[in-house]
């Protein structure tokens, strides 16, 4: 498949602490098409950020990628050395982080930080690099970029800093942009601006984007493909309509039901998911969601479920979809799918 930009197989990342092994990601596999916007949703501790860092191979001691392979743009980067990765980071794949306040260096001007990135990856002189930087700032909607580029991060507001981050990340025209909670620290009206910019970028530059967030609203606005993560595992994968209108995993359903709806008139009660997320130091055996699942069966606590195919490009990891499982309303039976 030539249009696949990223293929991840059985990724496992653990952190080895004094107290034991924290299994942050426990076997994540997915394929991503060029130009797609892939959303990874999950709560804190679900392994979504560690997955992203693993893709960039930014996992540092005491963490380690334990198993799995990462194939990016037809190159298997699983065993790439740090030097080789440095050439790729920022050039082929770039990342923006949650907190725009701390991810820019406060003692360098925006200009020197952006020019540094461009000159690291491209053979251009300072003047041309500056030109590119100004262009990028213009693209993300910073007014008067020629003047503002000389400013320091503290002179920018949170939304402006996040734009600078996006501009810097895009300045070498990467094939893949990983955005880890890019709007979480921002106000809603600013968030709307950033969402617009990301849409624009994906359309204009055809950059593939992985968007990591806990906000299903942001996912609904931006993404075409979604992976729902819980307890370090992918619970459900599907297109945007599959996940929002035909969720086939109890966790996805629970998540959607626990949100208040703006258009509901009556004071409906929210339907929460009982309990709290698992401790990844000693994850529950079987399905990580089984202690909180309303439909949990004996097998759920004993053995992790296989991946069931629910529809075209829609898979779910849940025993309820097994042909011998008791019928629960809304959960159609699926076939065991080959590992993706």
């Amino acid at each position, binding site marked *: 498949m030539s249009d696949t930009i990223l293929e991840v197989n059985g990724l496992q990342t653990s952190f080895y602490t004094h107290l034991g092994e924290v299994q942050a990601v426990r076997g994540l596999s997915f394929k991503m098409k060029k130009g797609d916007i892939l959303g990874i949703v999950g709560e804190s501790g679900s392994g979504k950020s560690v997955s992203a860092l693993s893709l960039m191979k930014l996992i540092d001691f005491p963490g380690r990628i334990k198993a799995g392979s990462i194939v990016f743009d037809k190159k298997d980067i699983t065993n790439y050395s740090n030097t080789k990765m440095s050439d790729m980071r920022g050039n082929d794949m770039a990342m923006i982080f949650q907190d725009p306040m701390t991810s820019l260096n406060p003692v360098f001007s925006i200009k020197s930080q952006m020019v540094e990135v461009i000159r690291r990856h491209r053979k251009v002189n300072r003047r041309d690099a500056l030109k590119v930087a100004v262009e990028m700032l213009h693209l993300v909607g910073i007014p008067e970029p020629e003047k503002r580029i000389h400013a320091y991060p503290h002179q920018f507001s949170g939304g402006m800093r996040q734009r600078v981050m996006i501009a810097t990340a895009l300045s070498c025209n990467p094939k893949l942009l990983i955005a880890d909670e890019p709007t979480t620290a921002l106000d809603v009206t600013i968030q*709307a601006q950033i969402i617009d910019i990301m849409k624009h970028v994906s359309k204009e530059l055809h950059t593939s984007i992985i968007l990591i967030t806990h906000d299903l609203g942001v996912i609904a606005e931006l993404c075409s493909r979604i992976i729902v993560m819980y307890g370090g595992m992918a619970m459900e994968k599907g297109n945007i309509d599959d996940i929002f209108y035909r969720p086939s995993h109890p966790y996805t359903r629970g998540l959607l039901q626990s949100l208040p709806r703006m258009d509901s008139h009556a004071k409906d009660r929210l339907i929460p998911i009982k309990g709290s997320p698992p401790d990844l130091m000693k994850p529950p055996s079987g399905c990580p969601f089984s202690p909180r699942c309303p439909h949990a069966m004996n097998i759920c606590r004993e053995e992790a479920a296989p991946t069931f195919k629910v529809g075209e490009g829609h898979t779910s990891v849940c025993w309820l979809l097994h042909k011998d499982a008791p019928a629960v309303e809304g959960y159609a039976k699926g076939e065991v799918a080959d590992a993706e």
Partner: protein
Amino acid sequence: MQNDQVLLQVENLKKYFRMDNSFSNKHRQDLTAVDDVSFVIKRGETFGLVGESGCGKSTIGRTIVRLYEPTGGRIIFDGDDITTMSQKDLHPYRKRIQMIFQDPYASLNTRMTVAEIIGEGMLTHKLSNNSERLERVHYLLNTVGLKKEHANRYPHEFSGGQRQRIGIARSLAVEPELIICDEPISALDVSIQAQVVNMLEDLQDKMGLTYLFIAHDLSMVKHISDRIGVMYLGKLMEVCDSNELYENPLNPYTKALLSSIPVPDPRANRTSKRIVLQGDVKSPINPPPSCRFNPRCPMCQQICREQTPELLEVRPNHFVACHFVK
């Protein structure tokens, strides 16, 4: 449950923070965190305050409990003016107004056990003797969905959602009438938020509590509140019924705020048109008389830059501050 008795009345409340950036008084500047804000909260209702960061919503909450001294205006609680009351006179009112804070990691003393944390208020207000107190702590833990074995543990042994429950139990311990909830759920995971919100609603039904619910998450505020006040840079822009606010927002800022909330419904997103505001929130330091929203407002005219619009009742129980909504 709900009657029209006013529990809390806030009149022209002002809170300015002095910015000392120079030794001389000439350069003194004021940050107008809350500027001339008035609203009432009726007994048994939930009043929501929403706005972006820096709009002064938390400052209002803290000023009402006199954690900050108000710069001007009046705070009238159950008929009594508590604006300038001495700390000694204020003591009985502290029992009647309680607060739940945003960060469940910072708002519990790490060196106290859960029983000590919850019981401290009862001790201060001399509400019970030692044995009664422990019994009540157990009862309260049960009320907020924790177990009585938890009483002897320390805060670090709990998750964020559980800590927030401890904070709620602490505020309930002195049987308050008004609870100021300052972003009580924004630090919690999505699946836990609904648990806490449902619990707050149950407690209100059971104990007849009144809430001032401060948050930036408009969909959650809409869910829990009877009436909502929308703030922008220290000013109230619109106050009305929560359903009315959603269905018929009149202030341009409220409209933009509502439309910029990403809805977890892809089909609705495809059809609806979003208003994306340009620019950022401007500085609240020494603002000139003007509508605070004018640099970002799509409807802005000359008058918006020169005069501050007043909060007027344009429809029954629907207050709006805008020159063009009359």
